[in-house]
């Protein structure tokens, strides 16, 4: 429905504005900035700060009205420059400053503070108050990440509104009344939310500050670049800010398409691990005679080329295998795909840890986030957005409030359960008929249905999810898919061709002359590669920023693997894998290299660079190029621009994508570009909504200026001549061949394991993060009351969980857990090893005596 327009006069200018627009937004549209504090474009208006008072015509003449709270109406006249408005705004500022301390020189907000700025612009310049100001104990920690200075608070209700309305966790609220009103948590209940960092971003004064950023930098010392959060595949748009070659903070950019300016704490405070040089791999390491030594790049790359050549000579191309990860950016993934498939010529490549089948189904029918949230029904399959793609949880909450019909298909209760219209249990014995049950719960036909697919239950092989997804798609051929698969750039790895049986672009790409078609792709799958490697069939196993321990291989097994074959790892952080490797190359991590990535809706997003790569680390594509040269084929990749030029020739997803596309849009383009509606010029960011971005921009290059924005250095630009060899559609169908829903059989005393992903999981990166490491909690086992009774244990007893490994943990009874399941709230890394890879993992419980 097109918006109904009304005609209003704003400061003498007659304009047409959509009916229902708040006056403040209409004024923003014509470039008139009204001072504001409580107004935030992504939250409901409350009109509490009174700063945005303007004169509005009414039946009894002009009166002062809050422009954020009042919507435009036909024939309305608005005046923002009159003496009355000036006086009112000046008065509000004076009242706000009555109790505000004059500690700007030591306040973190100083220099980017809306109160400071607007006091300069609209205040009197001199105070008439001689009275003592309010004093409170300060700062008080309201969580491990956030500190509160109550004296500075101007009671704008932004943080409390965020906690209640956006995050749905009202752990922060006003307390008291009048002069004594202040923000407060309750008693000893921490503001423990995955989204707590957002309150520091939207605070218009220095009342709420992020502990890791406190006293770290002044805004005018910061440089920033537009980038994309590298934690999950949602692709939140961020401004990465750094000072003196150290990341200082990350702020969410208000991207219409993606994150609406919100971030989760895992993404926001992930910079602490980038800065933690002690846990980074800083130089190439080589294992010689049992000892690990630091060596030069030349030495390490030479050693890699040597073992690859030897292995190939001994056992053929397929004796080299590459396991990638979604942590490489698109350029790195492509360079490594080319190295593996073209230069080395091995078919054993998997950059998606077995999720290739899901990704192939996804890309054929990818839905944008907007489409998913405005669909008639959204089916959530094996996904808990809050734990996997946290900001989608916020968007979903809003969409459900506006009437989205949500159908949940999960094994146990999740954060979706409270929002879902229907919850369907994903149980091992009902997988066959699941599609039918789901279909029945979709109201009114199959059109305009989107499936949100994730990897929530780690104990369920991605092949099982893939099978279910395909049966759903077979039942609803019109359905589109939004993916919440793990690791930031898995979708980019898929599209770059770092996935079994997929060509770059995942389309009908013309094969460049030298590129050997990946043969026998069914063997190329993470689980199969690992099996082959442990059987000694693989001579060289190359791991691209992939910690096997985190993926579910026990440290002892990794060491054994290291003895069976030559483990080569490319890593940013030290981990069990890097320590067991024969050669480790240091990889530039997030915000140390420019590039791009693709998120779960198939949108191409920029990754900005803010730091010099730590130590001797280099971008992944550089490493690939170096190894390739040592193998006698330089792949014609000398700059990131070369990769870019080459990707374009593949067509498919990359047809028509030019690097300049990033300059015309704040959000990147959806791939393929035909799917993308670029819309009008990028929306101007509200400088007061996220104060930190506007103020840094004032002092540095503009976001939209190519210098900061363009992720691709101009390369030699000569695209390799594309000779059409095979035009076969290798991609999707092949990758799915042989996928069936094989989940195994549970033995007498066994139960099916449910091991849900969590935001804070004890991987090597979180352990390296001083700000977040403490959020990893102890393991807990949750079972149904009946199972607990059969076990003869009491709530709180310690039990042993026996699967492919054994762990000990406290058991709890939970009525929401089905009787066929044993849910392990796995946070420590040992828990992840309970997963045995194929089908659906089973475990059994034993009570520990005493």
């Amino acid at each position, binding site marked *: 429905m097109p918006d109904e327009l009304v005609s209003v006069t704003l400061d003498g200018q007659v304009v047409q504005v959509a009916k229902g627009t708040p006056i403040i937004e209409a004024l923003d549209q014509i470039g008139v900035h009204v001072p504001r504090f409580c107004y935030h474009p992504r939250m409901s208006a409350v009109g509490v700060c009174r700063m945005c008072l303007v004169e509005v015509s009414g039946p009894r003449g002009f009166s002062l009205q809050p422009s954020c709270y009042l919507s435009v109406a036909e024939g309305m006249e608005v005046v923002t420059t009159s003496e009355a408005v000036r006086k009112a705004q000046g008065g509000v500022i004076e009242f706000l400053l009555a109790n505000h301390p004059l500690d700007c020189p030591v306040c973190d907000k100083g220099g980017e503070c809306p109160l400071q700025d607007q006091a300069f612009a609209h205040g009197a310049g001199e105070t008439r108050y001689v009275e003592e100001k309010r004093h409170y104990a300060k700062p008080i920690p309201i969580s491990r990440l956030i500190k509160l200075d109550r004296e500075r608070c101007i009671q704008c209700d932004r943080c409390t509104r965020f906690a209640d309305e956006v995050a749905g966790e009202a*752990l*922060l*609220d006003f*307390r008291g*009344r009048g002069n004594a009103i202040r923000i*407060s948590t*309750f*008693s000893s209940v921490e503001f423990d939310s995955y989204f707590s960092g957002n309150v520091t971003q939207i605070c218009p004064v220095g009342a709420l500050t992020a502990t890791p950023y406190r006293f770290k930098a002044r805004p005018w010392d910061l440089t920033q670049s537009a980038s994309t959060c590298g934690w999950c595949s949602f692709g939140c748009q961020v401004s990465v800010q750094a000072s003196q070659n150290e990341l200082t903070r990350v702020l969410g950019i208000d991207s219409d398409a993606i994150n609406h300016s919100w971030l989760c704490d895992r993404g926001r405070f992930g910079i602490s691990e980038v800065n933690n040089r002690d846990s980074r791999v800083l130089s190439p390491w080589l294992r010689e005679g049992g000892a690990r030594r630091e060596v030069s790049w030349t030495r390490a790359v030479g050693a890699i080329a040597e073992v690859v050549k030897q292995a190939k000579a001994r056992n053929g191309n397929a004796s080299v295998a590459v396991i990638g990860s979604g942590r490489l950016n698109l350029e790195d993934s492509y360079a490594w795909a080319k190295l593996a498939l073209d230069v080395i010529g091995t078919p054993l490549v998997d950059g998606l840890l077995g999720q290739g089948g899901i990704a192939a189904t996804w890309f054929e029918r990818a839905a944008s986030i907007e489409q998913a949230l405005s669909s008639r029904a959204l089916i959530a399959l094996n996904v808990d957005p809050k734990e996997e793609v946290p900001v989608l949880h916020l968007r979903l909450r809003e969409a459900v409030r506006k009437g989205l019909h949500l159908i949940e298909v999960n094994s146990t209760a999740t954060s979706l359960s409270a929002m879902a219209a229907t919850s369907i249990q994903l149980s091992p014995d009902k997988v066959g008929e699941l599609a039918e049950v789901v279909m029945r719960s979709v109201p009114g036909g199959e059109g305009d249905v989107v499936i949100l697919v994730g990897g929530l239950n780690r104990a369920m092989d991605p092949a099982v999810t893939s099978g279910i997804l395909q049966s759903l798609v077979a039942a609803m051929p019109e359905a589109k898919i939004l993916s919440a698969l793990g690791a930031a750039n898995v979708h980019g790895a898929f599209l770059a061709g770092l996935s079994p049986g997929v060509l770059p672009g995942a389309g009908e790409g013309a094969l460049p002359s030298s590129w050997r078609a990946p043969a026998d792709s069914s063997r190329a799958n993470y689980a199969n590669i690992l099996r082959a490697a442990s059987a000694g069939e693989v001579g060289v196993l190359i791991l691209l920023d992939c910690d096997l321990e985190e993926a579910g291989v026990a440290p002892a097994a990794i060491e054994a693997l290291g003895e069976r074959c030559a483990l080569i790892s490319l890593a940013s952080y030290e981990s069990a894998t890097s320590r067991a490797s024969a050669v480790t190359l240091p990889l530039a991590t997030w915000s140390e290299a420019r590039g791009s990535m693709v998120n779960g809706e198939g949108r191409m997003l920029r990754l900005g660079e803010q730091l010099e790569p730590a130590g001797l680390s280099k971008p992944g594509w550089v490493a690939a190029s170096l190894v390739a040269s040592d193998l006698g084929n330089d792949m014609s990749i000398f700059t990131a621009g070369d990769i870019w030029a080459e990707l374009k020739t593949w067509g498919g997803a990359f047809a028509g994508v030019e690097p300049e596309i990033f300059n015309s849009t704040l959000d990147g383009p959806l791939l393929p570009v035909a799917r993308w509606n670029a819309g009008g010029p990028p929306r101007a960011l509200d400088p007061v909504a996220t104060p930190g971005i506007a103020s840094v921009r004032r002092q540095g290059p503009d976001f939209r200026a190519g210098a900061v924005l363009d992720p691709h250095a101009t390369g030699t630009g000569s695209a390799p001549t594309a000779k059409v060899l095979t035009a076969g559609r290798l991609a999707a169908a092949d990758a799915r061949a042989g996928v069936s829903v094989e989940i195994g059989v549970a033995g007498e005393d066994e139960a099916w394991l449910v091991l849900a992903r969590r935001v804070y999981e004890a991987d090597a990166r979180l352990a390296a993060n001083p700000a977040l490491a403490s959020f990893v909690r102890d393991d807990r086992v949750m079972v149904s009351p009946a199972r607990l009774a059969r076990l003869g244990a009491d709530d709180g007893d310690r039990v042993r969980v026996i699967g492919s490994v054994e762990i000990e943990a406290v058991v709890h009874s939970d009525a929401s857990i089905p009787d066929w399941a044993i849910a392990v709230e796995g946070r420590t890394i040992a828990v992840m090893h309970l997963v045995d890879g194929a089908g659906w993992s089973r475990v059994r419980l034993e009570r520990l005596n005493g």
Partner: protein
Amino acid sequence: MARFEGEMLGRAERLASLYPDPRSAIIPLCHLAQEQDGYVTEEAIAHIGELVGATGAEVQGTASFYDMLKFEPVGKYVIGVCTNISCMLRGGYELLDAASNTLGVPPGETTADGIFTLEEVECVAHCDKAPAVQINYRYFGPVDSDAFAELVGQLKSGELDEQVPEHGTLIRVLRDAPPPIPLEEIDAERARQDAEREARAASREV
């Protein structure tokens, strides 16, 4: 004793179920907590949150707006001395000084024996009897320093027990809430009458 238990829990649950949105019961439940413990304890706030589906921060935020809800222990008798204009003209400040001397605590504090809490209050709408004193929200006035000392004596001896219950007790007679308004029945009756009227009008036209 802090969370609601036994009979109090029953009353609390009844209160919460009285409203279409249980959150509306936050204030009545805080009074109930105050009746139980003399002030609203943190445990009670947490329990109220559970009963009405709100977080502790929200309950605390709502409750802390109100002066009559106390979040720290107060005496058995909370004595408020008014110092607004009528009472001030008639010696409210002098009375407050005298009260402070008599009880041995400054305004805002509780006596060591935990029996009296002295407060300076804004106008309590008892101006015709200025200077006014309220004891557990029951009015006395006009009160001079001697009368105040006498009042304290009477409270201590229990002479005023009938008139002044312990702090926290708002009412001593419990009554059931009236049955909910039968909106559906009323609507149905209205619809029936409207239909009748229309039918009559139609028959007249014919």
